[in-house]
């Protein structure tokens, strides 16, 4: 091994480095000193400017925020788990984005990412979350579903209601960075906790690698099964490694509370049902989340959360509440009105096709959900969605009767907490 080492040194490095080696070369392939010396040589041969990515054709939040100066300061930093900036931004380098859709272009490998690389992530967060400043603002968390008013929609229009969020287990690396044992530990922690749920929340876990063909077909028919990510936004962020190891789906027997394990986040928590009772969907969501949190506390675990960023998730776009509350709603007349987009914008809502993000709407049925995630609490966002959907239905009804509709005033941005 010593000969391999000296061959490498002679082949690669300036003579100056040879002098600094001294007599400390020990045989063996492991050698932290090998790596440290290599890294030093690397830094002198390749200053940050040599590695700065070519972002000229890029239009994502990372490309807008990353400057050569920021890169130079952060390139050689690591989180306590040795996660690097290059790893955070790889997905954004590999996916230039689309001129109409601004993707985020960076992911976190662990909770500390948002601190160690704050110089990059803070402007990204500001850009994505309407000017939210993690340095000066606080994010409110409120999972008291009883506060929701007018949360039952007219089922002539609303076909189904759904709320989702994500939760990360503190102390374990996130999907881009986690090792197989960490991922398996996430699965163990979550599945053990879920086994403690009772009553209408009692349910069962299906490991992706272990399910029978019959179980798989049932999950597909229920629209519960998630598949190996094919989107390069996720694969370039290393989230599909070791698939399907330690991935799975849990759902209650009633099939209205569902948890994905180790997909894009440690957990994705979904409450859903047919019809327009968003209040009940949100109640179950909050109850379920609180019970799961209690169950993991009993074993000494907790969710990643802090008062600046709320719940910590893999993608900066999901910080805060990580919450997307939405409905499938029929709006045949309103959707053809030229003011539809503006109305949605002012209500801080977004439309998607009923296949989910990036699908087109079929017919007159849309997936309408909240735009915002950070800076407003869960209750505020769900209420905003409820008020907004009620407004849309009201517009539709007015248009049915040939009455006039109005574009509403824009909903207020965050309060100061």
């Amino acid at each position, binding site marked *: *091994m010593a000969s*391999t*080492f000296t061959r*490498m040194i002679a*082949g*690669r490095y300036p003579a100056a480095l040879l002098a600094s080696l001294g007599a400390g070369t020990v045989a063996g*392939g*492991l*050698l932290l000193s*090998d*790596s440290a*010396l*290599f*890294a030093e040589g*690397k830094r002198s*041969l*390749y200053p940050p400017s*040599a*590695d*700065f*990515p*070519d972002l000229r054709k890029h239009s994502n939040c990372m490309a807008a925020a990353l400057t050569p100066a920021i890169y130079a300061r952060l390139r050689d930093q*690591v989180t*306590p*788990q*040795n*996660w*690097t900036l*290059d*790893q955070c931004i*790889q997905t954004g*380098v*590999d996916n230039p984005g689309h001129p109409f859709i601004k993707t985020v272009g960076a992911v976190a490998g662990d909770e500390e990412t948002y601190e160690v690389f704050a110089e990059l992530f803070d402007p990204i967060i500001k850009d994505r979350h309407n000017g939210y400043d993690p340095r000066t603002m606080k994010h409110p968390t409120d999972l008291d579903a009883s506060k929701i008013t007018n949360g039952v929609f007219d089922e002539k229009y609303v076909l189904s209601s759904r709320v989702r969020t994500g939760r990360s287990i503190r102390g374990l690396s996130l999907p881009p*960075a986690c*090792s*197989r*044992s*960490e991922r*398996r*530990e996430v699965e163990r922690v979550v599945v053990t906790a879920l086994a403690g749920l009772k009553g209408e929340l009692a349910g069962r876990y299906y490991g992706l*690698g272990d399910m029978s063909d019959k179980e798989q077909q049932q999950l597909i028919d229920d629209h519960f099964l998630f598949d190996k990510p094919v989107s390069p936004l996720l*694969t*370039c962020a290393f989230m*599909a*490694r*070791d*698939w399907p*190891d330690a991935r799975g789906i849990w759902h209650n027997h009633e099939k209205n509370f569902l948890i994905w394990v180790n997909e894009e986040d440690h957990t994705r928590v979904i409450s859903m049902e047919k019809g327009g009772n968003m209040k009940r969907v949100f109640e179950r969501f909050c109850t379920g989340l609180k019970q799961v949190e209690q169950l993991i506390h009993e074993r000494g675990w907790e969710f990643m959360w802090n008062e600046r960023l709320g719940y910590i998730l893999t993608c900066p776009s999901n910080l805060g509440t990580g919450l997307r509350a939405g409905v499938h709603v029929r709006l045949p007349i309103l959707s053809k009105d030229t003011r539809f987009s503006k109305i949605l914008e002012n209500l801080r809502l977004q439309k998607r096709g009923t296949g989910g993000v990036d699908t087109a709407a079929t017919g007159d049925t849309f997936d309408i959900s909240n735009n915002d995630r950070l800076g407003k609490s869960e209750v505020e966002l769900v209420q905003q969605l409820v008020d907004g959907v009620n407004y849309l239905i009201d517009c539709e009804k007015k248009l049915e009767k040939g009455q006039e509709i109005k574009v509403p005033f824009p909903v207020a941005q965050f309060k100061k907490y």
Partner: protein
Amino acid sequence: MAKNCHNDYKMKFSGDEEFPDLSLHNNHMAKVLTKDIYNKLRGKSTPSGFTVDDIIQTGVDNPGHPFIMTVGCVAGDEESYEVFKDLLDPIISDRHSGYKPTDKHRTDLNFENLKGGDDLDPAYVLSSRVRTGRSIKGFTLPPHNSRGERRTIEKLSIEALATLSGEFKGKYYPLNGMTDKEQDQLINDHFLFDKPVSTLLTCAGMARDWPDARGIWHNDAKTFLVWVNEEDHLRVISMQQGGNMKEVFKRFCTGLLKIEETFKKHNHGFMWNEHLGYVLTCPSNLGTGLRGGVHVKLPKLSTHAKFGEILTRLRLQKRGTGGVDTASVGGVFDISNADRLGSSEVDQVQMVVDGVKLMVAMEKKLEKSESIDDMIPAQK
């Protein structure tokens, strides 16, 4: 390098907890990797930070195909083959017909040692091609290299190729800078390589930062072509229509040696050692890294019951004309050498030349409804 192994952190967890689930896998890595080997290697890292998990990630993510035996691992740098020899030596042995850790590989790029090869019947042999790969010493390999390294490799390659003259005078087209016209021309010439979509490559980290520092160089005559920073630092290809493999191989050897000279002058020779020959990203390409082949019409022979047997004995393999994993169209096959390590470039191209000559003769016999039983070769 782009990857940081964060291996020290992973060492907190036990080898058993980290060991991959390979129960559904059928690749060389899965056949060889045991918990013992994994435990022995998981604490190690090459000087540039490549670890055993990095080596095997592509094999973990791609269980393989029941009929095709993929390798399931890649090297991140030259030292990978040393530091992880406990895993890679058995894989190399498995993949390269029992090649032992003590075996020596012979390199022979003297085209004059090839006998014949200029008389393959052009009515059957439509085109001839020889390709190989080369890695540049002093840089980590495509699964691991940083943008800075990759760009330096590109810069050195452009400089080296610009010194070529005569039949080797040519031009470099960076992937991230060619005009639409240039792009269309390269597509029409079947020269343009695209961003890898195969998960065998993407899971090994080879498509990172695409298309930064990737490009294609070819000579004006369009018979000698170099890919920069695709699956290897360099892929070198010599090709032409028709059956004159001798000429293709001559150009291949001459061009390669000229390029190597230029890199050596800049103190960046190619990665080579007397045990593994030319060191490339995938263990399947060690040795010569050479695939020499023809597109040949064998409609009758290919449906003969002994076709597979004949190919095996001749140490050849068949592919469809779209390349690896494609089916043949109209009885036309891509026939090339199966071996890479343990025999020289001349040996391997000789096998193609002799084998194809024999198979064309068999095809002609079958056209006349004559038997080929007395022509079946012995195992080479």
